């Protein structure tokens, strides 16, 4: 699988409240609608202009804070192809795998990428192609590969239960 898109770049410790504000957690329940609010308190320009296929690049500890899964869902429903970061907060990492949103860890690629760059993530080769060079990233651990291949946790559980 390959994903190519234009980059929106952010810094360290981007938390789930600025990705999907708490005030919406019980007033916005439609998955498609969640995409409209993605990153509302972080970057109004993104909220207005992000296009399907774009890629988000963040620093360390992306998605720290709340366990709210909407912080993943809103990005997925906005059509974002993947998130590349120096690191992900633990719950966000699990939520992203469970939702089937591709996430990639590469500090070197993050340092090399600038806002607006066009980058390609090649999951088969485990590499990120940027205007400043190509960077390898660690493949997913074996035990989550099945989850990703099935398209997320719910389809994975359905399959394992034979449903």
């Amino acid at each position: 699988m390959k994903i190519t898109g234009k980059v929106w770049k952010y810094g360290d410790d981007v938390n789930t409240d600025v990705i999907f504000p708490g005030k919406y957690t019980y007033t916005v329940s439609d998955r498609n609608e969640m995409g409209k609010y993605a990153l509302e308190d972080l970057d109004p320009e993104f909220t207005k202009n992000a296009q399907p296929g774009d890629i988000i690049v963040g620093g360390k500890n992306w998605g720290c804070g709340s366990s709210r899964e909407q912080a993943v869902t809103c990005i997925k429903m906005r059509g974002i192809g993947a998130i590349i970061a120096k690191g992900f907060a633990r719950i966000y990492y699990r939520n992203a795998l469970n939702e089937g949103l591709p996430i990639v860890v590469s500090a070197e690629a993050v340092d090399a990428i600038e806002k607006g760059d066009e980058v390609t993530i090649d999951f088969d080769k485990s590499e990120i192609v940027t205007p400043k060079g190509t960077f390898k990233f660690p493949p997913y651990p074996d035990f989550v590969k099945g989850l990703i291949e099935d398209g997320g946790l719910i389809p994975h559980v359905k399959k394992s239960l034979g449903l």
Partner: protein
Amino acid sequence: MGKTFAEKVLGKAAGGSVSAGQVVIVEPHFCMSHDNAAPIWGTFKKIGVDKVWKPDHLVFILDHAIPAPTDKHAENHMQIRAVVKEQGIRYFYDVTSKGGVCHQIMCEEGFALPGLIIVGSDSHTCTYGAFGAFSTGIGRSEMAATWATGQIWFRVPESMKITVTGKFSKGVSAKDLILKIAGDIKADGADYMSIEFHGPAIEEMSLAERMTLCNMGIEIGAKNAVCPPDQKVLDFIKPIAKTDQWEAMWADDDAVYAQELHYDLGDIEPCVAKPHTVDNYAPIGEVKGTPIHQAFLGSCTNARIEDLRLAADILKGKEVAVRTIVIPASWSVYRQALDEGLIEVFLDAGCVITNPGCGPCMGNHEGILAPGETCISTANRNFKGRMGNKESFIYLASPMTVAASALKGEISDPREVL
């Protein structure tokens, strides 16, 4: 080679000896959900299973926005009541005078027990480590899958040992210690790790103080945080335990840690986390005099009877200079505060007291900030927009610092009013 707390508890649940880095599949003893039980049910239904795996392992506690502030919230609560009925969920805490903030109820009502594995669809589920439980927050899909299968995977975490010695000086409390730790190791300092609190000062601490420490483990990235299940814990849990499956477990003396830290409480001073991150530490002297518009004494971090007593000591016989919202962590705490005359102290001082619940902590209701306003809060997060408006500012502090600041209308050093 000895084992850490996490290795022991996860090993026992997985039926063998395990080490950090291994992946295990375990059956959790309790699965806690709050107002998000309704959307989780929606996801659960997509799996195609009719019944949850064990209804008595699920605990539902309404707290995020109670009583419902909007029709959407009301509908959400209504769906949860329907699920409770349909699935025969025995442990349900509705909008009644038996409820309160979910994490407080889990501890007060005997769900948080030594050696149990507890998952919650809320990041502050790590609070139950104060009672020696292995507890951690998970997302909605993961909770739905756990309801269906009774199983969840964990990577056995590396552990961080934080040894605490010494005694707090006057005006300093557990909140100041955890804010200092966050400032030192930063928001991802314990990422993916199990934090173990050790040392004589932890044993000296009340269970309430231990809850404050463990509650904020997530703010430094931890999977879970835990204190030793000592006699204080056992005396508390034995009469109220909801199951006899618990077992007091603790790390071996020769366990291997990824990192070890030491704090002497004598070195800790009153402090705040400045906007907009929890690790933005400042000693009180640096921010003293900052004007505030609101003070909030509440949340799963600091609204227990011990916290209310500390604040009431400072507010007694005085009047607050800014609007001050007090939200006891549960109705049981509320009743005790009534009995002890603390509610009267708060009312006499001009505070507004609302019903137990999360209140304005995550921007739902009961104290949303206006653009440009500043709040000093005993809660656990000061992220931009957290209390409902992205142009407002939140300082996190201890109950004593919040009370002292409420009196002056500006961030104040509690040592000056004690």
